[in-house]
Structures are given as C-alpha cells and as structure tokens.
C-alpha cells in the first residue's frame, strides 16, 4: 500500500510543479504580450510616442471611461458582443453555435471541474465530483466542447468554407483543445473500467470485510457500472445482484452516482471493454491523467503566445472600439489600440469572406490581399521580425489592394476597426520601403478625399516616388535631345502591345491630334508638354514606332482622367483611353518586377544610332 501512496504523493508533487510552472509562464507571457501593445508601434508616426506615454494615456483613458456614462455602453457591449457574440450570430449561425459550444462549455468546465476546489466547493457545500448533478454536468459541458471542436474541424477540413485559411496557429489551438478533451474522456473511461480504481474505493470507503458481500458488490458493478474485473464475470445470479445492490446502497451511493451519468466516459468505457483489463494493468488511467493534466497546463502556459490569447484581446477590442473614435481619442491610445487589435484577430476569416477584392487573390496569388491574412503578416511586421524583401513587397501590395468598402469593418466579430487600421498601415507601407506602383490607381481615391487626416508634407511622396520609379526605367524619355531612328526599334514591346486586347488598335493612328485636342487634361495646362510629357497622340505615335521608353515614361499616363473623350473622338477608331490603360498595365507590371523593365528598355536602340 505504501507504494500506492508514494505514487500518489509523487503525482501530487508533479501536479503542483507543473501547475505553478505553467501559471508563471502564463502570467509572464500575459505581461509580455500586453506590454507589446505599448512597446510595438504602428503607422508612420506611431513610433514617435514613447511606450511610457502610451501606457499613461491608456490608464487615463480607461479611468475616464469607467467613471463616465460610457460605462453603460461597455456593459452592454460586453454582454451582447463578448458574452453572447451576437456579431458572430448575425454573420454565420453554424460558426456561432461552434464557438458558443466551445467557449461556453470550456468556461463552465473550468469553473465546475478544473477549479472545483475553489469555485464549486464554495458554492455547493455537498459537492463531490462523483455525485450528480456534478458528475453529469462535467460530462455534459465536455460534450458541448467536443461537439464544438467537431464542427470546427468539419468547417476547416470537410466543408472548406470559402477563403477560410487554416494556418499553424489555428491547428495548434484545435489540437491542444482536442487533446485536453480526449484525454479527459479517456481518463474517465479507463477509470470507470479500472479494477485498481475499484479496489481502492472499496478499501477506502466500504464498511465491510465480508467476502460474499464484496463479491456481490463487484458483480453489481461489473453488471451495471461497466467495471471490468479479472475474476468476476457474467452471467450473474439474480440474488447476488440483489445483495450487491444492498451493499452498494449502504456503502457507495451516498458519494458515488451511477457512472452512466458520466455519459461520454461511460460510452467510451463500453467501447474499450475488451481491452480494459490490459489497459488497467498498464495503468492507463494514470497515463491519461498525466496526459490530461499536462495538456491543460501546456494550454495554459502557451495561451498568451497562441491564438487563444484572443480570449483576452478580443473582448478588449470590442470594448475599446465601442467607446473610442478617431477624432476624439488620444492619438497615443489609437496606436495602442491598433497594435492590440492584431492580437484580437481570431483569424476567423469573416472579413475575407466579405472582402470586395478577395477575388484578386485568384489572379495575383498574393495571400496578403485577404484581410484575415494581412492581419497575420502585420503581426509579424509590427513585431519587427526580419522579413525578406519579397514578403515585404507582398505585404505592401496586399495592404494597398483594397477599395475601402468597409465591409470587413462592418462584419468583424471582435469589432476590430479595420477601416482605421488599413488607413494607418497603408500610409506606413507606401511611405516606407519600396515605391508601390498601385498608388497610381483609383485605389488612391481615399487618400485624396481623406487627405486632411494625413501629414500634408509627406502626402505627395509616395506618388512622386512611384512615378519616378517608373520613369527611371524609361531612359529615352529623359533625353529629349537624342536622335531617335524612325524604324521600329523595340519589336518585342510593339508586338506585346499589338497582341493585347485593349491596345491593338493603335496601328490605325494617323496622328490627326484629335485625341489631344479634346483631352480636358491637356486643355488644363498652358504648356501641357512641360507637365504631361508626351501628349496622347504622341504616345500613340511612340507606340506605333515601338518606342517603349516614350510610351511608358510620360506623366500623361498617370494624369489621364479616363473620360474617354479621346477614344470617342478618334476618326480612326483607335481606342486611345484603353491603350493608355494597357500602357499603364505594362508600366505597373515592369515596376513590380524591375528586372523585366531593364531588359525591355530601349537602351539598345539608342546605342544603335
């Protein structure tokens, strides 16, 4: 017997060590992660505000909100959006059910079962984990979580919900949760069937030494309660069972409900019955106990660093966004909130499902176009992790390829203000790093209309840099004094344009200049060539001559207002506006892949002269 007590003592010691170790890691992790909200910066000027100022601003803002009428808004949002998650319900019923099952089931399990010594015992004086309703409820809550995990796996693997990407973080979350639940059920099942556990209970609690009474009790447990005994087996004599029942009622019933109430464990116990003796012999229940405890503690220690951190960050996001706004809140708090929002994202993919430009992903293949994936990349970016050039460029492109339609912001279940986040991040991305050709598209409309929110001094820089990057690859356009041969000089370029659906009509141009005459942009300037470079008819001509540098290097391309006056007025049916579009496409492609630009330039033609 002393050996059993030794093992039990050792188990408890290990339990305590693991518990305290994981608690320490958990708390240090929480402090580290929350400190990142203040230490990491986002946005062009986010880094200018020191962490201490941001922390002070956050405390001030928090106190001011708590002692104002906004407190009622916070309470309402907490109940509606954090506890009942109505935002998820509105978007997707199945997802809501899945999440409610996991989260409600898990929290109830946490209080009733994991913290039973602290919570349940304090609430119910006659609490015993082996007694109903507690025994039943433990299994019932566990069952809810398991069904939730099942739906999660089905959604991610079988249903393949469109644009729902599963990354390692999502997988770890599901695996850890599943490990906790499965080890718990198996622990219960092996305990139900365990002869060891049974004999220990009899030794501790049975008030009899009578062989026949004990045998009768054992028979009853084998017959009724899925116990697997090495010696007692069916069929059972009716009288013996009757006797067993009496012994059971007298000795056991007061603190042990029928195991059937623990229905998940009981069901598994029935399944493992044929191998139960072997499992018991191998101390399977002890193994599953370790597994269960270690999985729980691992989950606890890993929580701040995993997707599960959202259980803290998401409610913070919901609450912060309910009471903050761009105009009135302290800019220091906006920076902090936006860094925090990256942690609040649960990678649920709702934004990507509703995203207006997500379809571009099929053509361009840049994951960062999808808002949910942008969040993953931005987490790395904000943490200042070393990112290679290509990754950075993909983040830049993905972030800017957005029509500002607001749909992601409207549907985000954790209330992240994605509209403001994109606004901040876009500006940072185009101001820093390489030029982003996409700024020269109508995606920039928001920047012009909302320019009062941007720094006026640096405002034109991204546009200037992108135009310069494109013009830099067009040497010829910068040297108007050069003689240019009048024979087609850049065949490859001309052929490419002639094959394009949009551009092929340029060959009909006979330089009547109608396009230039009707162009409202040309008409806006006293000396248009000085501002615009080549004018529309000259660009058509340059294209006809196969002069790539001239066709792609003019400001006219980017200053075209796409009003189609030129195209409408062309007597030759040259699709002038569409051709300008095609040239912009070519220039953008080459600007995104600079090596291609170098090889397609007209340099060779110049040297031949």
């Amino acid at each position, binding site marked *: 017997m002393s050996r059993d007590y030794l093992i039990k003592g050792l188990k408890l010691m290990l339990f305590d060590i693991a518990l305290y170790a994981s608690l320490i890691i958990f708390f240090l992790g929480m402090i580290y992660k929350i400190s990142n909200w203040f230490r990491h910066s986002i946005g062009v000027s986010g880094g200018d505000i020191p962490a201490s100022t941001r922390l002070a601003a956050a405390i001030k803002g928090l106190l001011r909100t708590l002692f104002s009428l906004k407190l009622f808004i916070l309470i309402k949002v907490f109940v509606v959006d954090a506890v009942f998650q109505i935002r998820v319900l509105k978007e997707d019923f199945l997802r809501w059910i899945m999440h409610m099952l996991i989260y409600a089931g898990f929290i109830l399990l946490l209080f009733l079962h994991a913290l039973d010594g602290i919570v349940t015992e304090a609430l119910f004086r006659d609490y015993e984990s082996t007694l109903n309703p507690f025994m039943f409820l433990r299994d019932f809550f566990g069952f809810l979580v398991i069904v939730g995990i099942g739906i999660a796996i089905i959604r991610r693997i079988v249903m393949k919900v469109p644009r729902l990407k599963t990354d390692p973080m999502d997988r770890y979350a599901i695996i850890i949760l599943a490990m906790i639940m499965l080890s718990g059920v198996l622990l219960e099942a092996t305990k139900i069937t365990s002869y060891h556990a049974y004999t220990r209970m009899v030794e501790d609690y049975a008030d009899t030494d009578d062989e026949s009474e004990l045998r009768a009790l054992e028979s009853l447990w084998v017959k009724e309660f899925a116990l697997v005994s090495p010696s007692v087996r069916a069929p059972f004599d009716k009288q013996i069972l009757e006797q067993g029942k009496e012994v059971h009622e007298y000795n056991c019933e007061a603190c042990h409900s029928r195991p059937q109430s623990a229905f998940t464990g009981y069901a598994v116990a029935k399944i493992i019955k044929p191998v139960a003796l072997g499992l018991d012999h191998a101390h399977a229940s002890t193994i599953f106990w370790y597994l269960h405890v270690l999985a729980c503690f691992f989950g606890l220690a890993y929580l701040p660093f995993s997707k599960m951190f959202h259980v803290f960050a998401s409610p913070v996001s919901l609450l912060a966004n309910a009471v903050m706004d761009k105009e009135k809140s302290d800019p220091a708090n906006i920076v902090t909130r936006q860094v925090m929002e990256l942690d609040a994202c649960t990678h649920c993919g709702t934004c990507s499902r509703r995203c207006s430009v997500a379809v571009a992903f099929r053509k361009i293949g840049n994951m960062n176009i999808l808002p949910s994936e942008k969040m993953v990349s931005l987490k790395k970016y904000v943490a200042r992790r070393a990112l290679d050039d290509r990754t950075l460029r993909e983040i830049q492109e993905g972030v800017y390829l957005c029509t500002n339609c607001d749909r992601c912001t409207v549907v985000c279940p954790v209330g992240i203000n994605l509209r403001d986040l994109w606004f901040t991040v876009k500006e940072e991305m185009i101001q820093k790093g390489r030029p982003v050709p996409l700024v020269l598209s109508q995606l920039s409309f928001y920047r012009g209309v909302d*320019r009062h929110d941007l720094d006026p001094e640096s405002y034109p820089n991204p546009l200037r840099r992108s135009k310069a990057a494109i013009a830099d690859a067009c040497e010829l356009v910068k040297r108007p004094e050069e003689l240019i041969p009048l024979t087609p000089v850049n065949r490859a370029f001309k052929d490419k344009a002639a094959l394009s659906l949009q551009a092929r009509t340029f060959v009909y141009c006979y330089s009547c200049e109608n396009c230039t005459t009707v162009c409202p942009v040309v008409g806006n300037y006293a000396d248009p060539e000085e501002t615009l470079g080549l004018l529309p008819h000259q660009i058509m001509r340059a294209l006809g001559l196969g002069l790539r540098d001239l066709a792609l290097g003019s400001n006219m391309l980017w200053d075209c207002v796409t009003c189609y006056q030129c195209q409408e007025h062309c007597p030759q049916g040259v699709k002038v506006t569409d051709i300008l579009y095609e040239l912009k496409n070519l220039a953008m492609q080459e600007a995104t892949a600079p090596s291609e630009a170098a090889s397609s330039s007209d340099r060779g033609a110049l040297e031949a002269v």
Partner: protein
Amino acid sequence: MKFALFIGCTIPRRVQHYEVSARAVLETLGVELADIHEFNCCGYPMKNLDFETSVLFSARNLALAERQGLNVMTLCKCCFGSLRKANHILKEEGALRDEINRYLAQENLEYKGTLDVTHLLSVLHREIGPAELKEKTTRAFKDLKIATHYGCHALRPSDIMGFDDPTAPVLFDQLVEATGAKSIDWSLKLECCGAPLMGINDELSMDLAEKKLRNGKDSGADFICVACPWCQTQFDSVQEMMASQRAMNHHLPSILYPQLLGLAMGIDREKLGMDMNRIDVTGIEAFLS
C-alpha cells in the same frame, strides 16, 4: 421588373444616402431589387493595374447575378462602365471568357454571357419613362435650375455603353425635367468631374471639378445633379475641401438624382437621406410646389 442591385464599394463607404434614396424611389415605382451579398468590387480600380484582373472582378459579379437569372443594375457610373465593358468583352472574346471562367470554376462559378448591365438612370428612362415619372410627381419643383452632370463612364465609349447619344444626350435632362426642374444648357455638361484622378493628382482633379462647378454656376444653375458616387464625392466632399483650400466663391451644391426625384414624388425627406450630404442641399426643398 427585378434587378440585382450592384452597390459597389464607394456608396457604402461615402455616399450611403445614394443607396437609401435610390431604394426609396425604386420601391415607390415598383422596381424589385435583389441583394447579392457575395458581389465584389466591379473591377474599376484594378484597370490601371491589370486588365484581365479587372475583367475577372466583373465576371465574378456577372456570374453571381446570372446564377439568379437577374440583370444587373448599378448606381455607380464607374461600376456601370466596368461591368458593361467586361460584359461586352466576355461576350465577344471567347478565349478570354474561357480563361476567366477557369478562375471562376475554382468557386464553382461560370459566366455564360446572358446578362445585360444597366444603370439606375437607364432603368428610370427606359423601363418607366419620363412621362410616367412626371405623373408620379406630387410636388413638382418650380423655378429650379439644375446643371445636369452626365458622368463620363456612362456616356463613353458610346459603342459599348449604349447609354445615350455621346455628343448630344437627352436621357438625364429628361429625367431631371420630369421633376419640374429646368435642366440648363452649360458648355461643360459632358466633361469629367475629375474624380478618377483624386488621390493621384489632386490639383488636376480639383482643377477639372472647379471648372465644371464654375461653368454650371455661371450658367445659372442652383444645384448640380449627379447619379454616381464618385461624381457626388467630387462635387460634395471635395468641393467642401476646395472651398477651404482654393478660396472658391462659386458654391454649387450637388444633389443625387434619386433625392431630387424622391422629393418631387413626395417621398419623406428622411428616406432620401436629405441631411446626409456634406454640402447642405436642403435649400432645394424651398423650390417644391
């Protein structure tokens, strides 16, 4: 009469009152609308980047509407231009359609090319008609002079848009006049509002807008009337910005056509979002009879 309503990206973000007022007017006129929540961007802002990508954007929308057997009606002229052009190309160019459909097939979609793309104004003019609209007006405007702004991407390229005569259009003028207002003559009527350059070359964009506004005002207009969220943003938010930046003294507020029509039809001003314009247009209600 039922259409798949294509809202696009700019309206929900900046010109919600356009959608609100259009729905109110169309409901009163008995035009049924279907909302397809899977719709994406029309492809317009992708045009500078890549032609095929922009066609793919349009094609996905068309395929979604085709699955429900509904023609598409847009409120935005740029969405109209992009969808209509893509629709034309997808019908004409089999090779491109096949390629685009290969992308769409990844989502079990296909565009066969059976749809028509139309604009709110075309529906009001062709399906209902100015005469019937006039009958429906319970409080016609009196002595109201409107500078009617057509919007480039509806008119041109005319061979594909088929909206109206590109050099002497009357469609929008007739719709404006159905409300009792007078659609004035002004020389820059068919010119661009400048919105496509906003954010790329703001000065040029505002130059173009300012010329139009000045020309409209000088020609005697009380209001400018538009039916496109880009034009509206340009003549509303950007005009507001220009007033402070450029010391403009030719203030010409911009009203959305369904707001104008709705008022004349006696629809509740709340339902027309009359207080949602940045530059106040409520003064127009004084012209109601």
